[in-house]
């Protein structure tokens, strides 16, 4: 097949909207291959991260995105130049999609110099010019995202800020505060709730008096979307972007998805749900195998093409892994960098008065340059 193929997505549910995105969507071969590859990269990258964690090469927290790939890839597919994104700590996939390499992501997880922020942030704190992290405090990114949208509107940009949060975070008061101001001021913000069924060990019914997250913005209209279908996500996001940029203010998107792994790597993720439940989702709703089946059936790709692609993806991740496990870490001088922007070097008090020193480098870039790494 060379042209566009039509697909039907699951119906959307609408809140305070007369019409919504179309369930009839089209897809061409290039995009099909592209989405497939992006989802696979994320899936494999996260598997690699999981292994690195088990090998104790990643410290602290490590929140994987496996199972939720269609959300990020679908939204990303609808983004246009100038659109911005902010999310919580489950940020590896987004970091990759928004301009960082797999190497930069994995090396950040292992705390190496080639990491997205050279090991200073770790799993939860990665950034690109249109991506504001990677935020560790549940809910904090909700007003931050509204603020980024505020800046877009201030500059008269026809763009949106995609502001992601989980079903657990959907109860945070600052979401309601941000939504109120976003609505009062018609900010172009998409509040996107990735409902993966759980906030840590708490199922949605136990955390949320209403699990109809697309209605929780009250006066902010909302759309429920099948978050396991990259095409539904893409379509809904496109529609939502148009809505926002028509000056109608914020929208809530509620993406029904699932988290395969534990909350973070230290959580086995099986005390609050059955292994069967996870298996069932993998079998019947997996965003990648589902998509794969559909594009093969539709003739947009062949089994062989996708196998080739899988191989390519494996290479990308394997190569990244090599760097992530062998690259050096920042020298200890980096402890004293990145304190203030455009400010002369400061004295920094160390563990004792005798270890109080002037900043050897102002910021990581300067340091990396000095050691020939940038």
């Amino acid at each position, binding site marked *: 097949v060379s042209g566009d193929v039509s697909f039907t997505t699951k119906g959307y549910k609408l809140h305070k909207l007369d019409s919504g995105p179309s369930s009839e969507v089209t897809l061409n071969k290039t995009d099909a291959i592209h989405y497939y590859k992006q989802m696979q990269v994320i899936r494999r990258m996260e598997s690699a991260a999981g292994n690195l964690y088990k090998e104790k090469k990643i410290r602290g927290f490590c929140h994987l995105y496996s199972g939720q790939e269609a959300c990020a890839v679908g939204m990303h597919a609808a983004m246009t130049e100038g659109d911005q994104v902010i999310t919580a700590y489950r940020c590896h996939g987004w970091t990759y999609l928004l301009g960082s390499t797999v190497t930069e992501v994995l090396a950040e997880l292992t705390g190496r110099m080639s990491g997205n922020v050279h090991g200073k942030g770790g799993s939860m704190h990665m950034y690109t010019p249109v991506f504001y992290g990677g935020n560790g405090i549940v809910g904090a990114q909700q007003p931050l995202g509204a603020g980024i949208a505020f800046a877009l509107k201030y500059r008269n940009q026809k763009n949106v*800020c995609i502001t992601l949060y989980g079903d657990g975070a959907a109860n945070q008061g600052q979401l309601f505060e941000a939504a109120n101001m976003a609505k009062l001021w018609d900010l172009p913000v998409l509040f996107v709730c990735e409902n993966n069924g759980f906030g840590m060990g708490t199922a949605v019914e136990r955390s949320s008096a209403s699990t109809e997250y697309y209605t929780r913005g009250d006066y902010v209209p909302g759309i429920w979307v099948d978050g396991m279908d990259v095409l539904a996500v893409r379509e809904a996001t496109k529609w939502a972007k148009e809505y926002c940029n028509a000056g109608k203010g914020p929208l809530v998107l509620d993406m029904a998805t699932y988290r395969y792994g534990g909350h973070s790597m230290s959580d086995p993720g099986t005390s609050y749900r059955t292994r069967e439940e996870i298996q069932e989702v993998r079998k019947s709703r997996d965003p990648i195998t589902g998509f794969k089946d559909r594009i093969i059936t539709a003739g947009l790709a062949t089994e062989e093409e996708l196998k080739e692609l899988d191989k390519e993806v494996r290479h990308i991740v394997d190569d990244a892994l090599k760097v992530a496990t062998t690259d050096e870490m920042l020298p200890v001088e980096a402890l004293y960098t990145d304190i203030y922007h455009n400010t002369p070097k400061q004295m920094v008090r160390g563990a004792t008065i005798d270890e109080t020193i002037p900043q050897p480098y102002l910021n990581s870039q300067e340091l990396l340059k000095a050691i020939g790494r940038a």
Partner: protein
Amino acid sequence: STLTVRDALNQALDEEIKRDERVFVLGEEVAQYDGAYKVTKGLWKKYGDKRIIDTPITEMGFAGIAVGAAMAGLRPVCEFMTFNFAMQAIDQIINSAAKTYYMSAGRVNVPIVFRGPNGAAAGVAAQHSQDYSAWYAHCPGLKVLTPYNAEDAKGLLKAAIRDDNPVVFLENEIMYGQPFPVSDEVLSEDFVLPIGKAKIEKSGDHITLVSYSKGVELSLDAANQLEAIGVQAEVINLRTLRPLDFETIRQSLKKTHHLITVETGWPFANVGAEVLAQVMESDCFDELDAPVFRVTGVDVPMPYAQPLEVAALPQARHIVNMAKKSLNIQ
């Protein structure tokens, strides 16, 4: 000419809003009401809805919005009606604003000013009277400014707005209406004070009084009283708490060999404690001819009734007493 602290702040805002179109002010009642304490008076009429923005009473939300806007390249001035209410938003100030530049290895800077009155006002009781100086000064990633008079207010606020980092700017409501003589330089729109530099408000050879914000007023009062008994006190106005200009303290101490710190906040782990500690840990220690003493607020929440409120706060006489003790004057 003279200028009140309120007008100095207003001028600084006016000039910086005019100078840089990325600068805007948001907060409760800052626009149509001219500010709860009239610091933003006239700005909404002059600059309109885009630049001067009334927010709902949702500190965590609007502080977060301000921080997000700063990350995305604007330069918000986020007014808290008082810093007591900023406690609702302090996670955004510390975790989102102060830490991001470091966490992002310098990728994302956050040029924002959080400002508003801090510390005790008059008769507003415990929940409305807390002094947050020590809390904010404790945290790396922030710059913390504490203006005392009109010159400070204008020069430091302009510096704060032009700074590329998160600045916590702690004003004092009681000082707003106070007029101070200022030079023409202060009135010019190019007047900017350096962040991180203390000012010697009065020089003297016998004892150093280190203070900030309203404490400077008390210190100058005390210095006058001391003068009457032949004691020349040097009064240092810290102006910036973080980064602290310890060098100015050091130089003064080398001259006077006696030191008192003065602030209106609670004693435990306050700014004075840090000054004492830095003196003790540094080569200054050998310069001391007497221990350093702190003059502070009393270690209780603020009561309402006036006699109790007065008793809860330090007075010039406390400084005089401690200075005498330090100098071994009966």
